């Protein structure tokens, strides 16, 4: 039988002469590691703001909902889809939506994938989601997707509002990702995204603008 492509490629690679593996230089500790909580918050805010993101600081559930009310009014939101992670669930947004005249749905409200897809693409003004971590280094959200964190909710609507506990604010990517891909024993998620501000492009005449395919605006509420 003819050798498979896999065997052939690997065999040819293995027959090649071995080469030395160079030593790795020692890297200085990242500056963010030395920051306290206020320093991390300031850094996160500064970085995300530079990418046109907006950061609010909310002390408790009530303040979070106040911010959401303000956002809903300013953006004339009528239809929101939310993730169902612990943070968002704890806000009881359906009750809030009833008071504010905003319809709030979750992926589970749709009978099948098709109707969910249609809704999230075409019938949703904003996606409201939690995030597993906020990384101060670059103002980045880390979202591990799953049953409670659908992929399109933070991507398809033109506005993405994320609510993250301040205790989830960490200095570097490594601090966040080692939880999922390290030896901690957690099963890594099938899909994980790092989100830093809105979708953007500069592909026509090098003119930069936000909202190419994904959200045009990103708002992060740091809670607690």
């Amino acid at each position: 039988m003819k050798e498979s492509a896999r065997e052939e490629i690997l065999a040819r690679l293995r027959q090649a002469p071995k080469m030395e593996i160079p030593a790795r230089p020692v890297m200085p500790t990242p500056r963010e590691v030395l920051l306290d909580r206020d320093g991390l918050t300031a850094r996160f805010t500064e970085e995300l703001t530079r990418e046109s993101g907006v950061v609010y600081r909310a002390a408790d559930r009530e303040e979070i909902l106040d911010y959401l009310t303000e956002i809903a009014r300013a953006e004339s939101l009528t239809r929101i889809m939310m993730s169902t992670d612990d943070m968002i669930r704890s806000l009881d947004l359906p009750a809030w939506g009833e008071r504010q005249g905003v319809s709030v749905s979750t992926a589970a409200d749709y009978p099948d994938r098709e109707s969910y897809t249609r809704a999230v693409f075409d019938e949703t003004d904003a996606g409201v989601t939690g995030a597993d971590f906020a990384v101060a280094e670059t103002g980045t959200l880390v979202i591990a997707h799953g049953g409670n964190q659908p992929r399109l909710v933070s991507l398809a609507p033109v506005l993405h509002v994320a609510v993250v506990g301040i205790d989830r604010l960490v200095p570097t990517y490594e601090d966040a990702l080692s939880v999922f891909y390290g030896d901690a024993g957690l099963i890594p998620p099938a899909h994980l995204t790092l989100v830093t501000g809105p979708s953007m492009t500069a592909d026509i005449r090098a003119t930069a603008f936000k909202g190419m395919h994904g959200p045009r605006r990103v708002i992060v509420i740091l809670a607690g």
Partner: protein
Amino acid sequence: MKIDTGNFVRNAKLEMQNQYARTFLSLLPPYIAARRVKVMGSFPDPAAAQELSRAIRAEAVARMPDLLEEFEKNAVAAGARVLWARNAAEANEMVLSIARERNVTMVTKGKSMISEETGLNDALAREGIEPFETDLGEFIAQQLGRPPFHIVGPAINVPVEEVCDLFMKKAGMQEETTDPVELGYAARLFLRDKFRRARLGITGVNMAVADTGAIINVENEGNIRFNKSSPRTQVSVMSPEKVVPTTTDALHLLRVLCRNCTGQSISAYVSIDRGPREPAEIDGPEELFIIIVDNGRSRLYHDPKLREALRCIRCGACLNLCPVYAKIGGYPYGWAYSGPMGQVLNPALLGLEETSDLFNACTLCGTCREVCPAGIDHPAIFLHYRALEVKRKRRSSGRWETILFGVWGTAAAHSAVWRFLYRLARPVLAVFGNNGKIEAMPGPFAGWFGARDLPVPARRTFRDQWRESLSKQGGAS
């Protein structure tokens, strides 16, 4: 993609007439290069950061076969299907049969250099499957049928009027506009509909992590995230050198890649997939295929010098600083890769015959080597290609060249001969001088002066003057 590397000189001359592109080239690459320097400064020690990324890439390439097997094992354990293709045709056939089995007639694609390399779009179109590039620049380049002008901005040189015409014809745009933002939103609307309906999404891979079996994509627009979220089947195509040992290594490369590519500290989106969606997920692909395309790499892996080319992370930092690219842009390189990156990769992957002009069109200034975060010594590779070419008698060195370099070599190795010849040559050179410059000479030297001047040698050499001044001081030393 049509390979047109053989017409480098003709196309370069054509592009140098293109005033619009020239203006662009005088502005954009230096701008990105300056941003790069600034944002590299956010590392506590930029030099160490660069050295580390070079070490990681060198290690990844040195351990490539082991890392690939480890990656495959972990990706398969996570539920992905890993396929291996020897060449472009095999890889394209794999994608085609996946599409056919699922009765797919339209696919959406994220920007992928390896699929440019394999000509996947043409292969799909030939079989009646309509491919839509979804990166804005790539979408424009695809619809215009052109190769990428710049790895980061594939159509950044295309005038807005031309984009407007194109979108009126091919992207369902309703009203004419030359506002880049409005044009972008028209493409958003058009491609959004494709994302919603696509059942097969195709992406490239920026990094494949051996110890987790995960693939990583880096982007700003969100089109790759859509390709990984909306369709029921995901096909991610990668070349073997994309594999890196660990997530920690990948994160460092990510920082370095974004800084070198666009001068960002991080791109808007980074997505990491380990297998297809989980059963509880409502969106995301039910099946994930990862196609590893060799396309000649395992062969060039045997040449220690060429193997270095596999360290490339496709950041494009070398393009932005290359004095040759700055004059001609990306088209003359005639294939998927342009600039110094293309001068290294195109000959490595296509062979030296049709790419000779690429590695000869270089002054060996070494700026690309200096900036390269992957530690590629481009000039050394160009010299290697040139030596191979002469050895294989593909480019004759010519009688004059042989004689001249023979004389030059002897003179340069013997100071007495050098001084003697120079003493003879000086008055001869002075004859051709004009206002302190020699701008042209007859005979075998004419070509050299086509684009260069030579200063007229001084009346008295430095050595003569030195000796004279010493003797004036009474021979003190």
